[in-house]
């Protein structure tokens, strides 16, 4: 649904004689008498609910507000109660709008405390054009900057909510989802700037940390941050001894024209004319359990004339057309006297063990192949 669309902004207050009412709303007459009657208990609330973000759904609409109460002898009934809220369709996701409502309530509270903005009739009238502008700009661009008076300006921005990123491991390899030069480097923090040059889709976190001379955990956090914003995605370390297999998603290369275009452009060797779909699809389908990349290269040398196999694998992983089969050693039998296995439990892949212990794949393979107590699972 993209950006949450605001249907209406309303300003409600507790009138000393008329009780809870809507003083202003844009567009006019959006909230019916009936709707307000139903939800007013959530708009102008009891003291216990004040300063809380309240979202209520009724009659197909969602109302988000934050009731404010300012107590002072000068007000009739010794308190000023108001609420500036937003109205959306009931099906809209409104999480991103909540900080906006909270901020607005804060602004109005400040304005009232500083200059009686709301309690004075002349200044209160300014609310209507302010609300109009807010509605227009927030819906159009998701941001709004509005000076209210000499000393106060409203700055609002709709921030998109994203999913929590995965934990980044030292054996993960970050790869840019778009061309690196797309990003304005100076906008990023210093750590990220320092490691950017080393993110090439082949260096894993540990290697980046060593070569860029940045502490490992800082690199992990920086990459996790990039992951959160969708700037990079994670793939696994590339080696010619790796084994991959296809996923059902590989068919999207056949079904989806845009993925085809993107893929063929990505995997073609530099300087060569574009590889053809058949060759690339055959290559992906040639990846099976038990087949290493080296095997693929020797079997499909003709198809690989115009294709860079490293980028082929990289693209396949990024788009989940293929997945990596990792090796997990498990120590199934052991002497009573020997220590229980720490790394050979089936929970740690070769990638992880090699990273942690500094051994190479070959060394680890040699060590384990000769041990009759250890079996290896691939998954």
């Amino acid at each position: 649904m993209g950006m949450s669309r605001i249907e209406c902004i309303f300003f409600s207050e507790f009138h000393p004689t008329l009780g809870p009412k809507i003083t202003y709303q844009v567009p006019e007459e959006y909230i019916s008498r009936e709707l307000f009657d139903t939800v007013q208990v959530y708009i102008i609330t009891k003291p216990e609910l004040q300063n809380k973000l309240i979202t209520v759904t009724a009659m197909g609409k969602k109302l988000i507000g934050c009731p404010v109460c300012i107590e002072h002898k000068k007000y009739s009934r010794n308190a000023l109660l108001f609420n500036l809220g937003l109205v959306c369709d009931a099906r809209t996701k409104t999480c991103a709008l909540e900080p906006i409502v909270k901020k607005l309530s804060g602004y109005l509270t400040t304005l009232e405390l500083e200059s009686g903005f709301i309690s004075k009739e002349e200044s209160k009238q300014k609310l209507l054009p302010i609300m109009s502008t807010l509605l227009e700009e927030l819906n159009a661009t998701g941001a709004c900057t509005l000076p209210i008076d000499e000393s106060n300006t409203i700055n609002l921005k709709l921030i998109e909510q994203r999913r929590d990123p995965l934990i980044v491991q030292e054996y993960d390899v970050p790869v840019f989802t778009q061309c690196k030069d797309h990003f304005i480097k100076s906008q990023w923090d210093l750590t990220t700037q320092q490691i950017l040059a080393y993110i090439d889709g082949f260096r894993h976190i540990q290697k980046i940390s060593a070569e860029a001379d940045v502490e490992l955990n800082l690199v992990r956090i920086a990459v996790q941050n990039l992951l959160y914003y969708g700037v990079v995605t994670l793939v696994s370390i590339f080696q010619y001894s790796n084994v991959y297999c296809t996923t059902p998603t590989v068919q999207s290369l056949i079904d989806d024209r845009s993925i085809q275009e993107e893929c063929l452009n990505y995997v073609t060797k530099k300087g060569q004319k574009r590889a053809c779909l058949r060759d690339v699809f055959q290559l992906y389908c040639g990846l099976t359990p038990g087949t290493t990349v080296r095997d693929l290269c020797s079997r499909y040398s003709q198809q690989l004339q115009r294709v860079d196999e490293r980028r082929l694998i990289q693209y396949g992983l990024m788009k989940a057309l293929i997945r990596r089969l990792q090796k997990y050693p498990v120590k199934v039998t052991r002497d009573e006297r020997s220590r229980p296995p720490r790394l050979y439990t089936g929970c740690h892949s070769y990638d992880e063990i090699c990273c942690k212990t500094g051994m190479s794949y070959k060394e680890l393979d040699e060590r384990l192949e000769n041990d009759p107590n250890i079996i290896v699972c691939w998954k």
Partner: protein
Amino acid sequence: MYIHSSSFDLQGERKSMYKQSENSFFKCGEKTSPISVILVTSGSRGNKLLFRYPFQRVADCTSSLTTKQRSPYALNTTGDVLEDPDGDSREQTPLTDEQLVAGFSDIILATILATKSDMCGKKFELKIDNVRFVGHPTLLQHPHTIQVSKTDPSPKREMPTMILFSVVFALRANADPSVISCMHNLSRRIAIALQHEERRCQYLTREAKLMLAVQDEVTNMTETDGSPQSPFRQILPKCKLARDLKEAYDSLCTTGVVRLHINNWLEVSFCLPHKIHRVGGNHVPPEALERSLKAIRPYHALLLLDSEKALLAQLPLDCSPALVRLIKTCSAVKNLQQLAQDADLNLLQIFQIAAHLVYWGKAIIVYPLCENNVYMLSPHANISLYSPLAEAFGQQFPGHDLPSMLAKFSLPLSLSEFRNPLDASVQEAQLIQMVVWMLQRRLLIQLHTYVCLLVPPSEEEPGLLRDEELPLVARVGGRSLSTPSALSFGSPTSSDDMTLTSPSMDNSSAELLPGGDSPLNRRMTETLLASLTEHERQVILNIPAAQSPEDLRMFARLLHYFRGHHHLEEIMYNENMRRSQLKTLFDKFRSVLVVTNHEDPVISLFQSPLE
């Protein structure tokens, strides 16, 4: 009014198996578990909170802000209530679930949750800071009748009457929308049962009276003794409804299966799919589950996750005999079509019951076990030496360990290969049992063969993505292979308009007349090949195998399967062909076909979580 009659309890092996992972249930359970259950009513006596669980902690209020905010008619003057100590939104430490809801006093909850009557009969959703309340307020009396009596100048009525009530669940605000939807569903079901019992024998009024009496009693005691007590703790032993609500809450937080008997009479059953369908640490969203269930074909099979005996023991006395028959006749080697014949039910019924069993986590959909099935280790399988699965396997199959068995499936292995082990100590039957055991625990995935037509590009304009290279699917326009006769299916907890498609049997391509190279056959072949481009047609016709009219005809007939979405077994089923026939055909035309193996995306849902 239909209260669903067959329901299940989770028992036996499953419980012990999940003991270790129950901790993870609790840890990541916040998102799928409720924080609290609350019962409120509105009536002539105003809004009241009758019951809430878990109980509030009893503590003294320290903040002056809260004393100012205290409602003038607070009954619990000696601090029966734990208020939010800061009252401001910038907390240093995140509040626990209990504190989040405990921060709301009974009075305020009664005010905000007992809605106006025009919000009744619909989903009620209210979010306050980090708590989301969801319920289904239900009218007990028509508001119209109340108005009449209000204008009645005659003396006050003797009995205070209840106008509406609501069973509300409090959740964390970031709960998944499907979880919120499910909780609302449960609230509605309980409401239906309570409304029925109220009309029949004033059950709710009686329980409400009891609860309020206890609350009054405890308040009086508190005022005289000065010792703070929670009235709700006293209500539990006295009110069946309170115990039911507590049980619902506890079940939702643990197993996800709720089974209540309102007034010891009406059964309300419910399952939270998010707790039942957890694969690889993530829950399977109900919509994905429903999509998969709609795509089941007659050649699939139903694999029960419990033993037949255990399942039958869980069924209530009044369950449908069709369900019992199905459970008794079902087997991992029998496909649904055969099951329909053996159980003497029609296919649609089989589909419905199968979907029902799957939804409740009692069965999964697999391809029927046979020699040629190829299995591989699932990427989400837990192969840890110390997993509870490993332990259970060792108990079930003494002398064997799970990791060694799983290692055998590191490379794709067919059942026939698996059954010829080098060591003859293992019985063949036991091997099959092991495979079934591993399938039930989602440790294995089955691989199928998919075929795609891709013709080598012509030499003249290489490198350009001409229209020629547009895959067949884009040109043919996706011919539908089954004509679904969608039927409405009221699964107990899914939305009421979930439909199942029952593919009609006449979905194989037209039976071509026998008789070799008759003109009719030739024309049919030409028609079928007409959807190809000139270049493709040329290439295909130049293949040596195409010289044989039989082979070419078969190829043309199967052309629409060659877009990578139909696996070998499906083609075999639809076209009534043998595996060997198909494999030979693929081999003959291998220069234009690309073959790959992967899991069936339709049923792979049961092996792997969705992104």
